[in-house]
């Protein structure tokens, strides 16, 4: 008998609505794992509905062109009215889209998994040509108007920066060399997924560009990066030429210094970026479904020093776990990494991890069975 049927789904759903927080959470976890293991998607709505709306509350601050965040003015809050400032509203909406993506697609409650408040700062400095994550909040510049426009205009850039927070709270990939390039790649992958999900675009319909909306029309170039064709996002006098490789044969060795981009973390991210693109387009349909789930589970299973090979092996193992060993999804994960020059080696890992996860699930189900018994007893009493 499949594990998902030991506790009837309607009972799990009852428990999911339970007043007891711990009982509700356990039921939700089990429902979610069941849904993941069986590949079904019908549970999503229930999980989402039961998640408190009071999580990941947003605040947007106006720096008024200063650089001291503590002097910025609170301009829009979760329950407050719209601002008259479009940058403020765009940042607010971008935070909301990213928060909703993580909640509805990946069952993650804000960037820390625990409802962390989301703060954004706009109009930072003057002519500031960047957006960054400072470890706690995200900061947007207005651009200089010659090369870049206002950075709040790019939803994938907002998703990119907030995903740096998610990575910090999960694998905490160190920001150097291959783990650093994976860190950057996670931000690009989930950044484009936020955009594709918000626009309901399939892998085939998407442009797979990062930062396409922040380059001025006068700049000959498509974007900052292309996951479809790394190395082709731009090539002109003002910007130079996109240096990203899309294959291990083009891996760029750079010094592990700030001038060397910490070993090329924004450069070599092109390799795992392209592997994700290859998987998403070979599977077809919405990239936030199987490809997004495989990558997200792999991010959570990674650690600070995970390199490309280890991450590739993990995605193969997770694909087997989520969709079955020798499934189409698992085969295409292997092919995608092959396409960027990385051979996955993970068949045995899959078996072991599957067994561990099943054991964990059995434990949760026994606990739930006990909870149901006590509920029944309480009902009779």
């Amino acid at each position, binding site marked *: 008998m499949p594990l998902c049927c030991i506790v009837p789904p309607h009972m799990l759903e009852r428990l999911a609505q339970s007043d007891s927080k711990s009982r509700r959470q356990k039921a939700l976890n089990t429902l979610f794992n069941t849904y993941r293991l069986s590949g079904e998607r019908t549970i999503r709505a229930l999980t989402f509905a039961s998640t408190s709306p009071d999580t990941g509350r947003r605040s947007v601050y106006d720096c008024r062109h200063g650089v001291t965040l503590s002097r910025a003015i609170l301009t829009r809050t979760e329950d407050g009215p719209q601002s008259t400032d479009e940058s403020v509203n765009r940042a607010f909406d971008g935070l909301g889209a990213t928060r909703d993506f993580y909640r509805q697609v990946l069952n993650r409650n804000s960037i820390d998994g625990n409802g962390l408040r989301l703060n954004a700062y706009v109009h930072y400095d003057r002519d500031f040509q960047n957006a960054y994550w400072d470890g706690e909040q995200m900061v947007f510049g207005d651009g200089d108007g010659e090369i870049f426009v206002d950075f709040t205009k790019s939803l994938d850039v907002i998703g990119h920066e907030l995903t740096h927070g998610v990575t910090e709270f999960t694998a905490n990939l160190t920001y150097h060399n291959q783990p650093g390039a994976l860190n950057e790649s996670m931000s690009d992958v989930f950044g484009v997924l936020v955009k594709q999900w918000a626009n309901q675009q399939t892998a085939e319909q998407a442009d797979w560009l990062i*930062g396409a909306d922040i380059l001025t029309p006068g700049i000959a170039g498509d974007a900052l990066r292309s996951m479809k064709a790394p190395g082709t996002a731009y090539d002109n006098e003002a910007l130079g030429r996109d240096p990203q490789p899309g294959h291990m044969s083009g891996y760029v060795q750079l010094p592990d210094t700030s001038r060397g981009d910490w070993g090329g973390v924004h450069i070599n991210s092109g390799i795992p970026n392209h592997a994700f693109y290859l998987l998403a387009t070979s599977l077809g349909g919405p990239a936030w479904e199987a490809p997004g789930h495989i990558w997200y589970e792999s991010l959570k299973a990674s650690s600070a020093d995970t390199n490309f090979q280890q991450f590739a092996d993990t995605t193969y193992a997770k694909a087997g776990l989520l969709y079955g060993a020798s499934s189409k999804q698992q085969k295409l994960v292997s092919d995608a990494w092959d396409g960027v020059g990385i051979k996955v080696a993970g068949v045995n890992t899959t078996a072991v991890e599957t067994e561990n996860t099943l054991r964990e699930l059995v434990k949760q189900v026994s606990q739930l069975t006990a909870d149901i018994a006590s509920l029944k007893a309480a009902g009779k009493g």
Partner: protein
Amino acid sequence: MMKATLATWGGLAPLLATPAVHVDDADLSKEDAATFRSLATQVKDQPARPANPRARDARSYEVTFETPDGASTTVEQTDATMTPEFADLLQFLRRHHRRA
């Protein structure tokens, strides 16, 4: 007499070519030259700030001051830890480079 050169790197797309900015007080009006020297003095006197290790996609800025006697001083700061005085200096340098 003083010259300053600003180098910028890092950020969301770190290898985008960011040209260096040069400012020479000989090219400035009397008023601007005074502002330039005052900003430079403030920044040079500030203790070094360590970069924020949790910051991602932050840019780095290095200003090198040179005087006619050959002496040079370098100050480096990053987005997530920049002082307001350093930000004022960056804005001044960018504005006056463009006019030159």
